[in-house]
């Protein structure tokens, strides 16, 4: 199963991951990462913008590379766009495989590329207004691991 989506509304994780897991009888393991909008440091709202002609095609290309690089039975990659409240899920990547190493590494690979090499732009609203967010140095170091 391959399920790559951009969503402009909050999503129910159980409704995504339950059917995804059940779609792969005989699997050895499923690894899932869910990223949420962090609160607590003054963020009132987060907004993710994208560029329609590039963003979803870029995610499909990332999925192609994950399937080529790891032995996967399935891959789910869902990313929110638009305005989001702290605590809302912003991204979910789930990989099903016969062996755990492939499932975990595929999630790690996709998350690193969604974070700093996909066509999203993130800004946070704080008391003093909107601030554009750029990847941290550690994000660049993370993606460099994949060569």
């Amino acid at each position, binding site marked *: 199963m391959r399920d790559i989506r951009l969503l402009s509304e909050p999503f129910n994780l159980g409704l995504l991951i339950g059917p995804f897991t059940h779609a792969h009888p005989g699997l050895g393991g499923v690894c899932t990462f869910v*990223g949420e909008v962090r609160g607590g440091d003054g963020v009132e709202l987060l907004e*993710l*913008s994208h*560029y329609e*002609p*590039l963003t979803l*095609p870029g995610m499909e290309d990332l999925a192609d590379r994950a399937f080529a690089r790891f032995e996967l039975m399935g891959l789910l990659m869902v*990313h929110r766009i638009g305005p989001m409240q702290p605590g809302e899920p*912003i*991204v979910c990547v789930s990989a099903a495989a016969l062996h755990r190493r492939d499932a975990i590494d595929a999630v790690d690979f996709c*998350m690193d590329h*969604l*974070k*700093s*090499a*996909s*066509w*999203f*732009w*993130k*800004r946070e609203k704080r008391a003093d207004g909107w601030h*554009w*967010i*750029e*990847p941290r140095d550690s994000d660049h170091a993370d993606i460099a691991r994949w060569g």
Partner: protein
Amino acid sequence: MAVRIVFLGSLQDIAGREEMEAAAPLDWARLLEAVGPDCAAALQLERVHIACAGTVLADKVALLAQDGDEVALLPPVSGG
């Protein structure tokens, strides 16, 4: 017809708008002229990319947009 220029992310703030039109054909020099000095300076940065007609240019200086093309100005990304 013309070329549509789309500003993404922080370039919207720098340019003060989300999009504009420019006369075709549009090359790199004419783009820099069209977007104004602040945005032109940002476009020179290595980590700012340009897409033309849905394809990210390997060499943005080689831009040559035709009538009806959309040119997207892409600052550093941040997802997830």
